[in-house]
């Protein structure tokens, strides 16, 4: 993925740039908002990572300008501001996701992947198949190896999120935010318990596991190698 990183702190910028390059991404870095805006307008990127606090200009203004120029590239905000208002303002300005510093690098990688590989016509799909699992979005029903699996609504929603991001790592926070709209850390094993419930229905008795645990990061829905 080709990513433009607009971050004024040199150390953070270098660290993130190196890490993301190791992950197989191509990184362009800008230190000021003006340079960032120029780059974003002159080259096609798959993703913009924008620090909210930049010297001279607010990250919000840059994203507004980018959106104003008709550039629809997904934007991920990095910020030290954790208040609800700041997050809402960031998303309203045209940001697609919002990550509060400090964060685990794996969290950033997972969110980048989720943003970058967003299927363009996801809403048009009616059935998603991963390995031998079949998710019928219209009928909200699940089959594995041809066998129908009964799920509670909360289990279905969790599965749908995992399946829609099949092959990508999703973190605990991503699940909390997108499946239950929890924008805070409940500091309990809520996610783990829900995943283990879902596993007992989806994976148990089918030989191979589809819900993989990625240690220290989160989960990944994919056929076991």
């Amino acid at each position, binding site marked *: 993925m080709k990513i433009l990183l607009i971050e004024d702190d040199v150390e953070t910028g270098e660290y993130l740039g190196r890490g993301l390059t190791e992950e197989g991404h191509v990184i362009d870095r800008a230190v000021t908002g003006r340079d960032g805006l120029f780059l974003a307008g002159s080259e096609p990127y798959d993703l913009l990572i924008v620090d909210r606090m930049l010297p001279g200009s607010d990250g919000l203004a840059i994203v507004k300008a980018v959106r104003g120029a008709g550039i629809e590239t997904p934007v991920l905000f990095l910020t030290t501001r954790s208040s*609800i208002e700041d997050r*809402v303002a960031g998303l309203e300005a045209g940001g697609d996701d919002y990550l509060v510093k400090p964060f*685990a690098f794996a969290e950033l990688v997972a969110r980048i992947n989720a943003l970058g590989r967003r299927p363009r016509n996801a809403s048009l799909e009616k059935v998603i198949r991963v390995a031998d699992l079949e998710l019928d979005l219209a009928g909200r029903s699940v089959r594995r190896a041809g066998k129908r699996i009964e799920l509670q609504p909360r289990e279905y929603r969790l599965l749908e999120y995992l399946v829609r991001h099949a092959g990508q790592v999703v973190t605990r926070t991503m699940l909390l935010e997108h499946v239950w709209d929890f924008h805070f850390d*409940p500091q309990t*094993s809520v996610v783990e318990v*829900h995943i283990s419930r879902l596993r007992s229905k989806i994976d148990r008795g089918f030989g191979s596991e589809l819900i993989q645990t990625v240690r220290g990061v989160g989960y990944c829905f994919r056929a076991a190698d």
Partner: protein
Amino acid sequence: MPLTRLLRTSSFRLTLLYAALFGVSVLVLFAVIYVTTAGYMARQLDRGIDSEITALQEAAQPGGTPRLASLIEERQAETSQSGTVYLLQDSEGRKLAGDLRFRRATIGWFDLRGRSRASEGGDPHRIRVRGVKLTDGGYLLVGQDASQLDEVREIIVRSFLWSAAATVVLALAGGMLMSAGILRRVGSVARASQAITAGDLSQRIPGRGAGDEFDQLADALNTMVARIETLMLGLKQVSNDVAHDLRTPLSRLRQRLEATLRGAPSVEEYRALVGRSIGDMDEILQTFTAMLRIAEIEAASRQAAFAELNLSELLATVLEVYEPLAEEKSQVLTSRVKPRLMVRGDRELLTQLMANLVQNALRHTPAQSRITVEARQGEGAAEVAIADDGPGIPAAERDKVFQRFYRLEASRSTPGSGLGLSLVGAIAQLHGIMIELSDNAPGLRVLLRFPRAVAAAG
């Protein structure tokens, strides 16, 4: 109080302005009185002279000038004290009769200075005279002493000057008195404000209790100071909390890193250490985030984001999240939530509030406990009750649980930062929700009463 300060006050300037306005209106009033009174008297005077001339001429009709002369002599003899003066001259300018000394007679109205018989021996004063030409070429002049009219004029002008002087003196004195009073009250506000600025936030601006505009100002300022004091106390609390609850784990982390560095650890040991340190760091950050969140809520800047929302749906989501957790611990989480309960608030914060309370109930009760969440329309407003049959909270400690970092002795061993309930308290306060903790016999019952603002929707 220095005089210059007194004179610089806006109230003094205002008084001067009013005094000037008042002075102008007094001037106008006096001018009207002067013109009408003096004008009337002057006209009366002239009319008297006119009628005397007419009377004399009519009376002398048959006798001509000699008759006129004798008539004038008669009148002068009759009225020794009269203010009327006469002069009769023939066409050559020779005086035939009268007491007016005047060399050459003139026709028409004019004033001259002299004495009438009424004011014999006194200062000469103004005499109003009219001269007419007689048919035989002679002249008749009749004058009237105008001293009364002039006196009245003088009285009017003098009384005007006196009252003008009194107005100015009174205005100045009143203005100074009023300014002194206002300066005194402004001074007390300023002194109190200076003390507050200097850091004494417990100081309040004194009022007189009269409910006047200064008391209103003092009330408004006091409300502001009280708010600032609350915010400052909150800030102080946060910094104390930071010192208390972040220093300890931070120093523990530092010690561990240092100890490892001193030994000769293997790569494996390093890995384990870094992993554990990151875990510790995350915990510290969680505490930090929770404290910031509480401060953010207490600053009450979030009410702008309030919207009407469906509390029943919100509770359903929270319960859905925690049900599997309860099952895992063999606890029973049941709910009786009436549909379509509408409240006004911040969705995110209310979700966190409910989640924290449910989580608290799950965390502090043993296996097989029953936790019940009820929501219904109370007296005009929504009510949510979260009850458990666990160990409960002793009555004496119920007030303290909303304080930051407060943890019951019995709960020290269970995980948690000790910030969960103070976050609940802060969110509830922002929303005007009353929280009641009571004995569920056994266990704890937390009752949330929403403010009576939005009625239930259809």
